[in-house]
């Protein structure tokens, strides 16, 4: 059983230590000691190995072991790049923003350690365009401070290691959170995904070996290098070690970010940390990974929040963005919201996603505006069946579980919107013009 109450935050140290975003305060609390230890006492492989031993898994959603990812970088190809995915665009996710706003140095230190581990000298942090003020303010200030104190730049801490770090803003495109689309965007192209292989580890930015990691992932690297893998493994479970920031939103009294050890039950997040559901209502559904996730029914509320348990319960941990629906919420409306989001964000490259999200949006609209038939409900299933497994990248695939589980759990709500009168009476031709 995971220890649910953290004595001290591992990632959100700004909640324990005031003004830790300032480098002097950060330095007074073990700041940049991990980098110093890494550069002076450890080889690059040692750094990769401690991250491997810690069991840290990528926090952007996929949960791939971070140290293993780093070890895929070929040693004899130069230059290499670190690209940080700070695109954070999944509806319901707002954790990386808080890390960068409030504890930026721990993150910057983690990026530098990653660069040292794989032999990269250039790092780009790719943030969503809406992080304009953050990237022109707090984040740039923190990077400037790190340069001034000699933790970035040439010959860091009088070693042979040099590392430059640059901020780069996207401009409003959810697809750029997909790592290969992000790389295309950073190269100045439209942010559409690339086919894999080759994987970014071999041919990433400018076709050079590239590590792409999420902000939260790299913020974990700093304490892992400083305190060691065993220390890190005191939190979480065997297969999902460490702590995780959960973004809690929707119909709860205290929405917000909460850092908990992996394996903490969802109930604890909603009831203890989130102050329960608004007006004491019942939970209707839990979307554990933002708009991309399946709907988990209220009976899954005791599921431990780790990668394996969430998958076994029919959900996924993803980036741990828990959107809570209560009993007053119309399930069809909620599903339509997410479908519309994906239609808006589909990059247009592949037809299953481009057309699938378009048709889903139209059918949902038809149902919700009172013109639906039973055939429309079946049509929704047909569309997601044709999308599943056929989309070029995960964006299109992400649409499927939410719609499928919404239908599974709340089919009666769909059918209530589908009337037989419509079936008999509807002037099909006009409807095509109205809805499609």
């Amino acid at each position, binding site marked *: 059983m995971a220890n649910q109450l953290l004595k001290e935050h591992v990632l959100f140290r700004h909640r324990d230590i005031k003004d830790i975003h300032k480098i002097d305060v950060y330095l007074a609390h073990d700041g940049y000691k991990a980098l110093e230890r890494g550069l002076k006492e450890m080889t690059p492989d040692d750094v990769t190995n401690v991250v491997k031993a810690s069991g840290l898994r990528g926090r952007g959603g996929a949960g791939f072991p971070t140290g293993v990812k780093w070890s895929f970088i070929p040693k004899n190809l130069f230059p290499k790049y670190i690209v940080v995915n700070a695109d954070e665009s999944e509806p319901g996710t707002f954790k990386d923003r808080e890390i960068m706003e409030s504890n930026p140095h721990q993150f910057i230190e983690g990026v530098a350690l990653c660069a040292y581990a794989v032999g990269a000298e250039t790092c780009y942090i790719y943030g969503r365009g809406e992080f304009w003020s953050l990237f022109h303010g707090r984040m740039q200030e923190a990077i400037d401070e790190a340069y001034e104190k000699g933790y970035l730049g040439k010959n860091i801490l009088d070693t042979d290691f040099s590392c430059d770090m640059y901020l780069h803003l996207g401009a409003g495109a*959810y697809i750029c959170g997909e790592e290969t689309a992000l790389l295309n965007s950073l190269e*100045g192209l439209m942010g559409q995904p690339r086919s894999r292989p080759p994987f970014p580890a071999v041919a990433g930015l*400018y076709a050079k070996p590239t590590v792409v990691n999420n902000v939260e992932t790299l913020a974990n690297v700093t304490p892992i290098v400083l305190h060691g893998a065993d220390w890190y493994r005191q939190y979480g479970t065997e297969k999902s070690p460490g702590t995780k920031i959960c973004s809690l939103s929707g119909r709860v009294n205290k929405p917000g970010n909460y850092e908990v050890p992996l394996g903490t039950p969802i109930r604890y997040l909603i009831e203890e940390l989130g102050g329960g559901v608004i007006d004491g209502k019942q939970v209707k559904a839990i979307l554990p990974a933002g708009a991309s996730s399946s709907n988990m029914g209220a009976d899954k509320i005791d599921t431990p929040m780790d990668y394996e348990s969430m998958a076994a319960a029919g959900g996924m941990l993803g980036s741990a963005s828990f959107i809570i629906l209560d009993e007053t919420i119309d399930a069809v409306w909620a599903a339509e919201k997410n479908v519309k989001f994906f239609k808006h964000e589909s990059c247009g490259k592949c037809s299953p996603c481009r057309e699938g999200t378009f048709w889903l949006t139209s059918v949902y609209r038809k149902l919700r505006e009172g013109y639906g038939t039973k055939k429309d409900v079946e049509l929704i299933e047909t569309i997601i069946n044709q999308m599943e497994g056929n989309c070029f990248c995960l964006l299109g695939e992400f649409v499927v579980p939410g719609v499928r589980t919404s239908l599974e759990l709340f089919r009666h709500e769909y059918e209530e919107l589908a009337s037989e009168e419509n079936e008999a009476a509807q002037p099909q031709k006009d409807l095509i013009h109205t809805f499609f």
Partner: protein
Amino acid sequence: MGWTEKEQQDLDKILKKYPPDRKLSAVLPALYLAQREKNWLDGDDIEAVANALGIETTHVHSIIGFYTLFRKEPVGKYMMQVCTDLPCALRGAEDFFKRLCERMDLGPHGGTTEDNLFTVEEVVCIAACDKAPCMQINLEFFESLTDEQIDEVVARLRAEAS
């Protein structure tokens, strides 16, 4: 448009971030720079970006079309972008958007005010779901908003503009 001296300095700084043979990487930052003054991009701006990076204007157009934060039509001095995605909508963002439009004498889908000061539009997630209703005004966050706060902000921006 040509770049002003200050803009040229900013552009040079931007270009230093990328390898010398990878100027194309600077297309998004260069577009932000070109859009900064009047909040949208005209033909001259687009040509200036293309020239600065040594690329075709067609490519610049394709980039502007792909990303939502660039605009080729005039908009208000202040872009008010309200998130109405699911997490925000669960906390009243749709009603908030409607009330905002009414307060600004706009139709239910937003638009630009008669004095061309404000453009109000619905956008997708802006990573502030716990502080709904939320919006960005020219990319600055305004969170946990009440109608009264909106009135204050609008009055302040109106005063600033006059």
